[in-house]
């Protein structure tokens, strides 16, 4: 068994999982556990902020509880329309030895799953079903990336919720509002959500 529970100072634990699907499959169960204030997913871990001592029995439970299969938690994918005309489309095509049209097809023809959020509010790290678009980050980050820019880095895809600096390879842009504090649920994408990108500039 490769799940591990790592001490994270006096009031937190890091649950290291086999992979992202296991971490996501444990989220709903961990949120129901006693003594845990907050559950924060990472790329293959779940950080547990504690409000009380976790005893040996609970530690054993955290290490052995079966993760829910993702199809038990998932609903219909969220559709995000993308105007694929990003400045780095040609660079991405070059890195995977392909064409811009093929990059678009590979991006829009699979389901992406929100693994975790970070970088800025509402920025979701999206994991692909297939590692077809594995690219290096830009050697020098851009100082200004517009809100709605759709990017790639390593095997992740992500959408910049607001204008700011960023080093991901940009392949398109969406009008979808990723983050809006006036909405009851400010983040469009949350861990475990699934995303289907839809090309809106296909000729």
């Amino acid at each position, binding site marked *: 068994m490769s799940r591990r529970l*790592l*001490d*994270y*100072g*006096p*009031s*937190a634990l*890091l649950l*290291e999982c086999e992979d992202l699907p296991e971490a996501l499959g444990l989220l709903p169960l961990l949120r129901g556990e006693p003594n845990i*204030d*907050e*559950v*924060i*997913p*990472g*790329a*293959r*871990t*779940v*950080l547990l*902020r504690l409000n009380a001592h976790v005893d040996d029995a609970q530690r054993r439970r955290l290490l052995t509880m079966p993760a829910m299969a993702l199809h038990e938690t998932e609903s219909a994918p969220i559709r995000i329309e993308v105007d694929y005309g990003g400045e780095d489309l040609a660079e991405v095509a070059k890195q995977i030895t392909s064409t811009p049209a093929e990059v678009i097809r590979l991006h829009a023809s699979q389901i992406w799953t929100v693994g*975790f*959020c*970070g*970088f*800025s*509010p*509402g*920025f*979701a*790290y999206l994991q692909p079903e297939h590692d077809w678009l594995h690219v290096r980050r830009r050697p020098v980050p851009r100082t200004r990336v517009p809100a709605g820019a759709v990017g790639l880095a390593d095997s992740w895809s992500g959408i910049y919720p*607001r204008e700011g600096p960023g080093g991901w390879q940009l392949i398109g842009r969406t009008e979808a509002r990723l983050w809006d*504090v006036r909405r009851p649920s*400010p*983040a469009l994408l*949350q*861990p475990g959500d699934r995303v289907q990108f839809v090309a809106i500039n296909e000729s």
Partner: protein
Amino acid sequence: MILIVDTGPLAVIEDLGRPGLAHLGVPPSGAADRASCGLANRLVGNDEIDAVIEVTFGGLIIAADQLHWVAVTGPPTQLWIDDQPTASHAALPLRPGQRLRIDPPVRGVRNYLAARGGLQMPKTLGSRSTDVLSGLGPAPLRRGTTIQVGQPTGSLPGIDVAPQRVPSKDLEVFPGPRRDWFTGEAWARLVSEQWTVSADADRIGIRFEGPELDRRIAEELPSEGLIRGAVQVPAGGQPLVFLADHPVTGGYPVIAVLSDVSADHAAQLRPGDHVRFHG
């Protein structure tokens, strides 16, 4: 109502922040030195959740249009009401037309000003805190800003003055989740050598300068959750301690974590300070 006459280098509204939203990418934010923020509120009979002004390196001047009870906490510092010197860590009546000025602290960085009734600013995601990383919450205070003060909810405490706490430069650390990604010597250096606070220190975190902390495992770490007080070691081997406005996830290993009390003390470190971590 309180008028901001001058702000000093940085004055921001803070309360206990936005805990519980990290899974959406929202930093916890809130007062960098939570103990000092709590004491300021208690000295004027406020709730712990009331908003205060976090003053960085002094220089804040406020004026009152009616009687307001205020208290300033944090590192020891000199206050002035008009031209009269007065004490921090005490509830003070600020009368209509009077001005309160906060000098820069001799040691430490951040002072906290509470007003009886609490500072009323619009809330974002349940908090009035300014988050300098994500841009959530009110903008840093500017000259001429006016702040409404709420109705008192509790009575003034039956004490005149609270003890002052000199910021400590001995910080308590516990092992972090990736201690085993570093060599045994790296941990030994962390808890035995002297570390210097670099100029790169703000509400997000503090970079330290000292001996390099060598990795045993060199591979890239998939991003994982961060907490206040986490001691992360980015490429380059120099540790970085995260404070209130820290990013919620990071891709470098966390070797150690400060105790809650030490995280408050870390928020009072200034560039050039020498620090020791005790494991």
